[in-house]
């Protein structure tokens, strides 16, 4: 399992020979005079990227903003000794793709790809006017000079050493890219992804995504197009669609190969392979834990809506049993670690 407080997380799944690691950049200062009341600095939050790799090749999910961040990321990739074949951007904001320019110089054989909807945003973000007004003003003299925009990804699949990686458009990214109405429509047609349905259980015929199906999750721009929704169907169908859930103590068990569940508000959580579910006592909820474990180490707890929390929430714990901030992997305060649904 993951190492607490580390910038490098490595996970494996017994159902595939592929592995993945994450690299998280530290927070960096933003040049601005627009501070919150009482604050004197405005840091840009840490950004994460994922390297999915096999015996020789690798796919990178997301790059960063600045030259320095990109060089550090390139060094990290190089240190793995893998052949980088693809750089995939989950969405089109500059903080997830500007660094690709530097990575492509370092790994010239790699393809840089993204969904069509992401590319549209990339073009806006990398326009000279937008760069000057938004990015260069915040990070002066720190950006790559010629920003590369990704090639259009025409399918929802990557191949990596004979295994398929499926892009799952979840309908949200750093900010919501769908309207609420579009999202409501999506989850109405795909109730299997809804956390509240899992909490209510029993839920049968819930399709799941394979352990490595979620490239870039949470992320993956979506505009809610029929093509993207079809991609979800295809991905689900390719990953054991229609399996019935085992019930233990009236709690629906997760897919042994792992799965992703999505809250009505678009927040998502990955249940890793090999996890089992048990009820949370006193409160309304489900504890997902490594089979055979006790305590809070490495658990994910999903609490359904109740009088105290009309929307419910989930919490993710590190190997020390501390609830973490999902975006950083570090322990956080109660407010930071109760993730609303």
């Amino acid at each position, binding site marked *: 399992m993951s190492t607490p407080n580390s910038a490098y997380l490595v996970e494996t799944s017994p159902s595939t020979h592929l592995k993945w690691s994450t690299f998280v950049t530290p927070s960096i200062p933003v040049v601005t005079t627009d501070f919150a009341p009482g604050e004197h600095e405005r840091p840009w939050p840490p950004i994460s990227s994922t390297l999915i790799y096999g015996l020789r090749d690798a796919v990178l999910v997301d790059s960063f903003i600045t030259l320095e961040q990109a060089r550090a990321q390139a060094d990290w990739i190089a240190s793995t000794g893998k052949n980088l074949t693809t750089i995939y951007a989950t969405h089109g904001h500059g903080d997830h793709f500007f660094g690709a320019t530097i990575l492509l110089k370092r790994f010239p054989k790699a393809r840089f790809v993204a969904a069509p909807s992401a590319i549209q945003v990339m073009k806006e973000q990398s326009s000279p006017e937008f760069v000057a007004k938004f990015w260069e003003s915040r990070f002066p003299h720190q950006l790559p000079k010629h920003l590369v925009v990704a090639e259009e990804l025409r399918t929802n699949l990557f191949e990596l050493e004979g295994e398929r990686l499926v892009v799952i458009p979840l309908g949200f990214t750093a900010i919501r890219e769908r309207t609420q109405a579009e999202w409501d429509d999506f989850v109405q047609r795909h109730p299997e992804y809804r956390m509240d349905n899992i909490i209510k259980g029993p839920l049968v015929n819930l399709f799941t995504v394979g352990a490595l199906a979620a490239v870039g999750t949470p992320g993956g721009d979506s505009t809610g197009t029929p093509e993207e929704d079809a991609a979800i169907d295809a991905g689900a169908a390719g990953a054991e669609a229609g399996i019935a859930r085992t019930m233990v103590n009236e709690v629906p068990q997760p897919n042994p190969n792992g799965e992703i569940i999505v809250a009505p508000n678009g927040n998502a959580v990955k249940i890793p392979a090999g996890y089992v579910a*048990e009820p949370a*006592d006193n409160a309304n909820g489900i504890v997902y834990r490594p089979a055979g474990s*006790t*305590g*809070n180490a490495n658990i994910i707890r999903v609490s359904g809506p109740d009088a105290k929390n009309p929307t419910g929430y989930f*919490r993710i714990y590190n190997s020390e049993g501390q*609830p973490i901030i999902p975006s950083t992997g570090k322990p956080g305060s109660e407010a930071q670690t109760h993730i609303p649904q």
Partner: protein
Amino acid sequence: MYGLRNDIDLSFLNARELIQVAIGVYQIQFGFDEDVIIYVESQFNYFDGQEEWTWKPEPGGAQIAARTVFLLSATIQNFDRQENGTIILTFSNGGRLTILDSSREYESYQITRPGQTIVV
């Protein structure tokens, strides 16, 4: 935030020996034998036999939490529970932990043992 339901059996706390105290910035863990762990995130009061101290996840909290190592190797002699979620653990060496459900918006503490997670 949830209070503590009356029908939840806490008798497994009886005679548990405190074997580990883990101090974090936002959470204190009290680890007992039989894989029983109490994770406190909101507030506890620690009475060392002479003086009572209050821990909250705020600056200086770690120093207060560190005082509870006095309880290591002691066993729970008696526990009291209240519907508002407060549990009071009295230890064999005279120390006492009062763990409160003081958070109105978030979880205050959890008690885990094999097969059970109690969220308060």
